[in-house]
C-alpha cells in the first residue's frame, strides 16, 4: 500500500529509513532522511530518527509492514522525492535487479552535481532537484531550454530524464502525421500539435495562419484561447520560480501541468472542479479557452453566440467589501468585445454577479461581466506579488497551509484595504478544514495526481 496523503508519505519515509537501517544500510537511511527533511523540514518523526541514527542509538524497525519494491520507488519519483527514491534503491537489493539498477543509475545521472562553472539557473535547478523541488527543476530547465544559447549536452540529458521520470516522456511523444492528415479542417490540422504537448507550435501555427488570413475569425478566437492558456502556464512558472520547494500539484498547478502535457480532457475536468468548488473565475476563463480549442480540433465552427449564450466566463474578481460575492452588478461589457487575455486582466478590479443572476455555468460559455470601477493598487496574483505575499505563496507551495494562512492574516491586519489577503486566508482555511483536497490528490506533493 503506497501512501496517499502527505502525512502518510512522511510516515512511510521514516518507516523505510528504519527498514534500511535494519538491513545495515545506515548511510542510505541517513541520506533518505536528509532528503526528506530538505524537502520538508516540518517532519519531527524524520528529524528524531535522524538524530538517533547519527548518535548511534538503537532504532526500532518499521512500525508497519511494508514492501520495499519498485512500485514504492516509482511513486516517490513521481512525487519528486528523488533523493529518497535513490536512497531506497541504493540501500536495498532493488538496485541490483535489471530495472532497479537502470533506475538507480538514471537517478544517479540526474542528481549528479552540476559543473562548478554551470550557469546560475542550472545550479538552482540542481538545488531544486535534491531538495524535493523536481517540478520546479523541470520548469526551470524547460524555461532555460527555450532561450539561447542552447543547453549544454548534460543539461539537455537531464531535461529528458526529468521528463521521463515525472511525465512519462510526455515531451517526446512522436509526431502524429496521420492525425494531421485526417484532421477535419485546416484549422484543426494546424492546431493538432497541441495534443502532442506542442502548445508553442500551435501558437506559432495560428499566428502564421492569421498572418496569411487576417480575417480568419475562428483562427483569431483560437489564437486568443491559446494565448490565454500560455499566459496561465507562464504565470504558474513564475509562481514556481518564486517558491523554493515542489509546487503542490493541485488546483491550477495540476490543471496547467495537464495543459502543458496536452491532456486537455484532464485539464478540463480539473478546471471544472475548481469552478464547482470555488466558483473560480480564472478556471472558468481557462475552461472556455479549452472549449474553443476543442471545437476547433473537432472541426466545429466556433460559434460566438453558442459559446457566449447565457453565461459566463468571468473576469477573475474580488467581492466588494459591503456586498457578498454573487451580489451586485455594475456596468457590463458586451460579449462582442474581445475576451480579455489573462495577462491583461486587472485581478483587483471588483466584479460581481447580479443579485438575480443564475450561477455561472461550468464550461464553454463566455460571459463578460466586468466592472469599470476604479481599481485599487494592483496586488493581484498574476503579477508582481509583493514579497510577503510571495513568501506566503511559497509556504502554500510547500504545503504549509496553516503558516501561510497566518501570514495572510497578519498581512490583512496591516493592510485592511487589501481584501484579497483575508480572502486568501479564508480560502486556505477552507482547504485545510474541509480536506476536500484529498479527494483530488490535492496539497500533496505529487507530480501527477491524474485522476
Amino acid at each position, binding site marked *: 500500500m503506497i501512501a496517499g496523503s502527505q502525512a502518510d508519505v512522511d510516515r512511510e519515509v521514516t518507516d523505510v529509513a528504519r527498514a534500511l537501517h535494519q538491513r545495515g544500510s545506515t*548511510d542510505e537511511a*541517513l541520506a533518505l532522511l*536528509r*532528503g526528506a527533511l530538505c524537502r520538508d523540514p516540518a517532519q519531527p518523526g524524520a528529524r528524531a530518527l535522524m538524530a538517533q541514527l547519527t548518535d548511534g542509538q538503537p532504532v526500532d524497525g518499521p512500525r508497519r509492514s511494508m514492501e520495499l519494491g519498485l512500485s514504492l520507488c516509482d511513486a516517490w519519483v513521481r512525487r519528486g522525492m528523488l533523493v529518497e527514491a535513490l536512497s531506497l534503491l541504493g540501500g536495498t537489493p532493488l538496485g541490483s535487479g535489471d530495472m532497479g539498477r537502470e533506475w*538507480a543509475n538514471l537517478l544517479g545521472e540526474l542528481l549528479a552535481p552540476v*559543473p*562548478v562553472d554551470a550557469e546560475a539557473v542550472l545550479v538552482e535547478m540542481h538545488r531544486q532537484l535534491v531538495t524535493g523541488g523536481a517540478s520546479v527543476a523541470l520548469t526551470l530547465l524547460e524555461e532555460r531550454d527555450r532561450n539561447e544559447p542552447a543547453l549544454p549536452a548534460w543539461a539537455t540529458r537531464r531535461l*529528458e530524464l526529468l521528463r521521463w521520470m515525472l511525465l512519462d516522456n510526455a515531451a517526446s511523444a512522436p509526431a502524429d502525421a496521420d492525425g494531421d492528415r485526417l484532421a477535419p479542417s485546416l484549422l484543426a490540422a494546424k492546431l493538432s500539435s497541441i495534443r502532442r504537448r506542442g502548445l508553442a507550435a500551435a501558437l506559432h501555427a495560428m499566428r502564421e495562419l492569421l498572418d496569411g488570413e487576417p480575417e480568419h475569425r475562428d483562427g483569431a478566437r483560437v489564437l486568443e484561447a491559446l494565448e490565454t492558456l500560455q499566459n496561465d502556464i507562464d504565470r504558474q512558472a513564475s509562481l514556481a520560480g518564486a517558491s523554493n520547494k515542489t509546487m503542490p500539484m493541485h488546483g491550477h498547478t495540476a490543471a496547467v501541468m495537464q495543459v502543458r502535457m496536452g491532456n486537455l480532457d484532464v485539464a478540463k475536468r480539473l478546471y471544472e472542479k475548481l469552478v464547482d468548488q470555488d466558483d473560480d473565475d480564472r478556471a472558468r476563463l481557462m475552461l472556455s479557452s479549452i472549449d474553443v480549442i476543442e471545437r476547433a480540433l473537432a472541426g466545429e465552427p466556433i460559434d460566438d453566440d453558442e459559446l457566449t449564450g447565457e453565461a459566463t466566463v468571468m473576469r477573475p474578481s474580488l467581492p466588494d467589501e459591503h456586498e457578498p460575492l454573487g451580489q451586485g452588478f455594475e456596468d457590463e461589457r458586451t460579449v462582442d468585445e474581445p475576451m480579455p487575455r489573462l495577462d491583461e486582466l486587472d485581478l483587483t478590479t471588483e466584479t460581481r454577479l447580479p443579485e438575480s443572476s443564475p450561477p455561472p455555468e461550468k464550461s464553454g460559455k463566455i460571459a463578460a461581466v466586468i466592472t469599470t470601477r476604479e481599481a485599487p493598487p494592483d496586488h493581484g496574483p498574476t503579477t508582481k506579488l509583493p514579497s510577503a505575499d510571495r513568501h506566503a505563496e511559497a509556504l502554500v507551495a510547500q504545503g504549509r497551509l496553516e503558516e501561510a494562512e497566518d501570514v495572510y492574516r497578519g498581512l490583512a491586519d496591516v493592510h485592511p484595504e487589501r481584501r484579497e489577503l483575508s480572502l486568501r486566508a479564508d480560502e486556505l482555511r477552507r482547504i485545510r478544514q474541509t480536506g476536500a483536497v484529498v479527494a483530488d490528490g490535492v496539497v500533496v506533493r505529487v507530480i501527477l495526481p491524474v485522476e
Partner: protein
Amino acid sequence: MDSLSRPPAPGWTPPPSTEADGRALVLFVDIDDAHFAQTSERLRKAYKLVRAQKDREACELIREHHEDLVAVLLDVDMPGSILDGILLTRILRGRVPAMGVPPFARNLPAIDVPIILVTSRTESYADEDMRRYGGDRLMQKPLEIHKLTLALTDWHLARNDP
C-alpha cells in the same frame, strides 16, 4: 518484480568520460588501468574524470583543477606511491604537520569537496576511521554512478541541513 507502466527510459550515448563537455569534474587517483576503465565507463554519463596514477601526479592535478572539482576519489592503497589514500586525505584536510608532508604535497590548495576512499576490500577498513581521517565515505570498487551520486548528494545536504 513490480509491474510498472513506464515507457522505456530515454537513451543517450555520452562522450567519453575524459572528454570535456561541461560535466562535473572528479579527480580519480588509481593506478589500476582496468579499474579506471570500468569506473570511467560507469560514471561518464554524469562525470568527467581527470586521472592520476600516483600521489605526485594527484597533487599536480589538484593544484591545476582544485577550483573545478566536485569530488576526489582516492584508492586507499595507492600502490607505487609514497602516500596512501588515507595519508593524502589527511594532508588534503590539513591534518598533517608540514614536516610530515613530502615536498611535492606541501602547500596544496584547500579543497572543500567530498573525498571518497575506494577499495576492493571494504571489509578491511572501518568507515568511522575513514571519517576520522577526513574522508567522507568508504566505497567498494568498482564505483557505480548511483552510489557516488548518493554519497555526494548526502554530503551536500548534510552541509545545508535545515
